[in-house]
């Protein structure tokens, strides 16, 4: 779609000069447009891969939720849905700031790219911070699968002791909880430094309306991570 790119590019072609001489142009491509399309296609293919990667865990989730419905409900009640809700809003917010960063990049507004990216990083970090709080609490409450799972902990209201016969199936729920949210968090932990790097390059003026593919690609990645959470929130926190 080189035509589309030309139509929507905003006046910087002149500054950039001919596509083939753009500093970021890799010469094994036919043209800069071709290079950008390839990069974007590559990212999409990567995301298709990511879908399947999470898919394995979701499969396990579906199965065990059907087998141990009671335990899943019980386990989810031990989570703090308000924190999950808060995080959902934060992460969707970060998706919006990310989209705005791409938007600014497409308009060639350098400082704005940096600003939006920083906002995204900030929101992402808030999300991870909340996750840390949640995880720590689970550790203290003996909700980490293993020998001590579900045992009473210091300062526990004895009424809330986990019934002995709930320990096993609930452990399956928490295994999935940690695996799914952990893998999701890992994706963010990988994403944030990349965002930071791109913000740095943006600051140095690497991106223009004509070429800002890296911003777009990291945007796609970030949105994907957001989508995963959109499913995780109701599946893990809100079970009846």
């Amino acid at each position, binding site marked *: 779609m080189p035509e589309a790119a030309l139509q929507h590019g905003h006046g910087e072609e002149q500054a950039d000069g001919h596509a083939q001489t753009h500093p970021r142009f890799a*010469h*094994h*491509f*036919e043209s800069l447009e*071709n290079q950008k*399309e*390839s990069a974007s*296609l*590559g990212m999409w*293919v*990567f995301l*298709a*891969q*990511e879908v*399947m*990667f*999470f*898919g*394995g*865990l979701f*499969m*396990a989730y579906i*199965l*065990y939720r059907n*087998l*141990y419905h009671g335990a899943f409900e019980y386990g989810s009640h031990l989570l703090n849905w308000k924190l999950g809700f808060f995080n959902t809003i934060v992460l969707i917010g970060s998706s919006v700031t990310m989209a705005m960063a791409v938007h600014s990049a497409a308009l060639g507004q350098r400082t704005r790219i940096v600003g939006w990216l920083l906002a995204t990083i900030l929101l992402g970090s808030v999300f991870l911070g909340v996750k840390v709080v949640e995880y720590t609490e689970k550790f203290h409450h003996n909700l980490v*699968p*293993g*020998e001590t799972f579900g045992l009473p902990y210091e300062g526990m209201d004895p009424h809330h002791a986990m019934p002995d016969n709930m320990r*096993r*199936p609930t*452990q*399956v729920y928490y*295994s*999935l909880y*940690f*695996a799914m949210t952990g*893998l999701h968090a890992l994706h963010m932990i990988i994403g944030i430094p990349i965002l930071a790097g791109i913000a740095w390059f943006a600051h140095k003026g690497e991106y223009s309306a004509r070429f800002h593919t890296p911003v777009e690609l990291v945007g796609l990645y970030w949105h994907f991570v957001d989508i995963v959470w959109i499913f995780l929130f109701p599946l893990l926190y809100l079970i009846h």
Partner: protein
Amino acid sequence: MTTTSTGAERRNYLNASEGLLSWLLTTDHKRIAILYLISVTFMFFLGGFFAAGVRLELLTPRGDLLEADTYNKFFTLHGVFMVFFVLIPAIPAILGNFLIPLMIGARDLAFPRINLLSWYIYVLGAAFTIVAMISGGVDTGWTFYTPYSTIYSNSAVLTAGVGIFITGFSSILTGLNFIVTIHKMRAPGLTWFRLPLFVWAHYATSLIQILGTPVVAVTVLMVAAERAFHLGFFDPRVGGDPVLFQHLFWFYSHPAVYIMILPAMGVISELVTAFSRKRIFGYPVVAISSLSIAVVGFLVWGHHMYVAGQSAYAGMVFSFLSFLVAIPSAIKTFNWTATLYKGSISWQAPMLYVIGFLGLFTVGGLTGIFLASMGLDVHVHDTYFVVAHFHYIMVGGAIMAYMGGLHFWWPKMTGRMYPEWWARVSAVLVFIGFNATFFPQFLLGYLGMPRRYHAYVGEFQVLNVFSTAGASVLGVGYLLPMVYFLWSLKYGEVVGDNPFGAKGLEWQTSSPPPVENFPEQPRVTEEAYAYSESEVGHA
């Protein structure tokens, strides 16, 4: 285009720059292919070493050569190395890497640095697995069935699992690179239906690599987490279902067998046409059948689980689809055969491999039909019948095709010819040795000898002796090329750019090709395999 002679003197990708570093930091797909060639060959001999150990142990019914645990580690490492580190990368990462850009008239793959990265990932994964091998080995079988792998095994499952997890990403990135390259970097005029079938086959393969591999990656991750952190996914003690692991594992590992065979089929399509100087019979059918194998191949994984407590109804669905997925393979086989009709058939070594492939793949595939039959598989499941089936396809089919392809493109890659006579000897040795090794295993399997048996009951011995004897011939058959390929690097005849008179775009540049592949952007004006007389004769 370019004139023949003095092939080695001209500037090419091999002599463009020097020093180890220029290889380790290269982003040239051709050099990366060579890096893969070296590492995969290494892993092949490692896997072969363990196969030799297995066969020697099985010479006698009693477990006398190896300890039971050692034997278990031997076949596990054999399977792991051969599947994940040899056959899955062999054709795509070596031949595919080298040839796809050449075949489509591109200067490189779309993401050369990612290409190099995937080699490093491969090496890292291999390193982990080798560490696992040294630090106690792995004894779970290449299938890593739970709960054995998660709870009971005392071996280095974690390290090996991490190795496989890592290598998976090498495979994914290669697939990603191919998909984008094939979509976006074809030379002008090279429409989809002018693509060489090798490229089609790799396109289909890449789909599986991308959509299947992540599932096995996350599955071994779950096994690792279960082992290391006591998370409970498959652990029956906390209510997990071990059979879920099998679903997830085979969801990848069945399609993975097509990762191994599809590129081999691509090679065969190229070789059949080149050595019969004839257009492929039924081009569109052969092309599309690759895609249908890739897609339908995702629907049949449960045929590994007929006796694993899977429901009979799911079994029926899987069985039905397994039969369906055999049809495109049958179609391909018939089309290759028909291509030979009225050809101008040369009996050079690569063609011998093609003939071997056609025979052995047919046997392997047809015995797949036995296994897909639910009622029959109940008996032969997890016996040597299955072992024979997959060696027929993987060794007799895929490795044969790989060897044929390696011979065929050897002059392209190195500028020098392999010694024809020796190559024919080795092809014949492999064929004979192979059949002697694995045919008896069909009989053993039907008689009921279970696989993964360190010791076995006496009445199975005769056939096992045959098998071991055959394996030694087979081993020689594989050692020979190793020797003469190395020899030919220095002493091989320097041949022209296109010693076989083949048609593909890759033959229209010099051999070995220059770094930029083509001095100028090639344009494609005709269909693939335009060998026949109504077309312009070959140059």
